[in-house]
């Protein structure tokens, strides 16, 4: 019961946040100097086109009415038409979204594989050379821009050694895994640096916790302690940390898609920006916000399911 109550409360809290998100996206295009209708219609639009857009967006109406139009249209799935691709914004985004989600999930899986064991190794050997080496390498990794990591991998593994394709997306599932391997590694190297840092601290905290000390005092074999107590709790921290770094994951995906020419929503965002396709920019910004808040919500619910104390606060 408490679980359902918590979920409902959490959903209700999302309403004012969502309204503010909509206000930010709405005001974004209004920041434009001059007439947004001209900006939305593009440079080559006729006067009639501009008048039609004015009418459709209700630009002649007061700001509150305009926002109401924008809000109700969006809730009905009408995000306007893309100038660049001459199609409804929602259709364009839905066509590209699976690629980005595939890449993101792929990258998250790889970053768990990279950061998990290394964080564990560093935490168990706290203060020793293994710990220092692992931390130093990830410290450098954190200072590397994503596009630079991508460019280096692309040059050496794809262009020079020809181990991976330089571009393309693939047809079957396995083909996709192969084509998107380097982009996924690029994003994963970036997110695993964030993950590893926090995960190491989380594991150390568990290692120092009283119940682990007690298990040691009881004389339980260290393999059992690590496997049953430490690893289980570390998994909880991993999920939470990954959930919270969804924003960075999306930013990393956006840049990586551009470097590797992956046809996802990140690259679409840049195409939209250079084409000054404002309806598409608005739609994509909203898409990213919806993605991030859904992941935040899932992380929260997952946490409260694992740790019922959270529901009380």
């Amino acid at each position, binding site marked *: 019961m408490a679980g359902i109550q918590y979920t409902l409360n959490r959903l209700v809290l999302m309403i004012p946040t969502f309204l503010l998100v909509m206000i930010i996206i709405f005001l974004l295009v209004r*920041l434009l100097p001059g007439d947004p209708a001209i900006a939305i219609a593009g440079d080559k639009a006729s006067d009639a086109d501009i008048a039609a857009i004015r009418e459709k967006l209700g630009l002649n109406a007061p700001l509150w009415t305009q926002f109401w139009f924008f809000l109700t249209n969006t809730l009905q799935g009408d995000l306007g038409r893309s100038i660049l691709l001459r199609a409804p914004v929602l259709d364009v985004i839905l066509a590209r979204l699976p690629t980005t989600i595939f890449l993101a999930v792929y990258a998250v899986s790889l970053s768990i594989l990279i950061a998990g064991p290394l964080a564990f190794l560093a935490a168990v050997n706290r203060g020793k050379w293994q710990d220092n080496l692992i931390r130093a390498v990830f410290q450098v990794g954190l200072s590397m821009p994503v596009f630079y990591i991508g460019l280096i991998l692309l040059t050496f593994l794809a262009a020079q050694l020809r181990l991976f394709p330089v571009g393309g997306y693939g047809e079957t599932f396995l083909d996709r895994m192969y084509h998107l391997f380097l982009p996924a590694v690029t994003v994963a190297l970036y997110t695993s640096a964030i993950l590893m840092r926090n995960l190491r601290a989380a594991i150390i905290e568990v290692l120092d916790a009283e119940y682990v000390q007690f298990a040691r005092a009881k004389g339980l074999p260290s393999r059992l302690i690590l496997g049953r107590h430490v690893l289980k709790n570390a998994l909880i921290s991993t999920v939470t940390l990954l959930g919270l770094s969804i924003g960075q994951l*999306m930013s990393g995906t956006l840049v990586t898609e551009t470097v590797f020419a992956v046809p996802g929503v990140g690259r679409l965002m840049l195409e939209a920006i250079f084409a000054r396709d404002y309806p598409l920019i608005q739609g994509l910004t909203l898409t990213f916000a919806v993605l991030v808040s859904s992941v935040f919500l899932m992380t929260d619910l997952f946490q409260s399911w694992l740790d019922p104390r959270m529901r009380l606060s």
Partner: protein
Amino acid sequence: MSELSLSQDVAPVQKPSRIKMALRKPGFMVGATIIAISSVLALFPGVFAPYDPNFIDYTAVRQPPSWLHPFGTDLLGRDSFSRVIWAYSVNMQMAVLATIFALLIGVVIGALVGYYRGIADMIFGRVVDAIITFPFLVLVIAVVAVLGPGLVNMYIAITLVGWVYYARLMRAEVISQMGNDYASAGIVMGYSDLRIIFRHLLPNAITPIVVYWMTDMALAILLGSSLGYLGLGAQPPQAEWGVLIAEGRNFITTAWWLSLMPGIAIVLTGLGFSLIGDGIADLLRPRG
């Protein structure tokens, strides 16, 4: 000064030992050295760069590194070493200008909502929730898209989004400082709110902000060069690390030095700021 004497009585005992401790931390020292050298290069690029960064020489196009051109030359025969050095002034400026206004706005707003709470604090909470719902980069490039590409618009965009992180930190810190006796004493003494906030609470609450600022400067260099690479930040022919990497990207198999060298400059500078940030955070962590 009388009201400050209380905190000064405690502080001087620890201060010298902390500086000595900092000097003994290798990570902090490496970071401080990198940033000191980077700052000198940023302030006096002309002294260290052997050539004019925009001097075009069609007789020396895409030459590999040599004694004459340590980092080679680019597709217009410009000296890459000089361009990387001149970029220090743009990228180091980025670290400061992309963060300082966010810091100032965030500190003031965070201190005010933390002190007064109430309805302003509630609205603030929702605004923070809304802004962190967007991936940082997505919101920044959306704002740049609307304002138009370029360095100044990039600073505006990063400030519009970035102040939230400082404000959130400052608010939490002010609220925790309010629980101390000195804050209650200030209120009892009848000091004005502004005096309590800015002369008493703020100096005590500022340390986490400074630590975060260091990390944020590293992030600003990464973000600024990413926007430069994507064509949304500094615009060519200006020498900026992201722009330089983008210029070399099509020749990366034949003229690798064009993209590799500016990247190393980014990594080194970013590392410098994060090492300083980590060092300060380590020093300020309560001992024991």
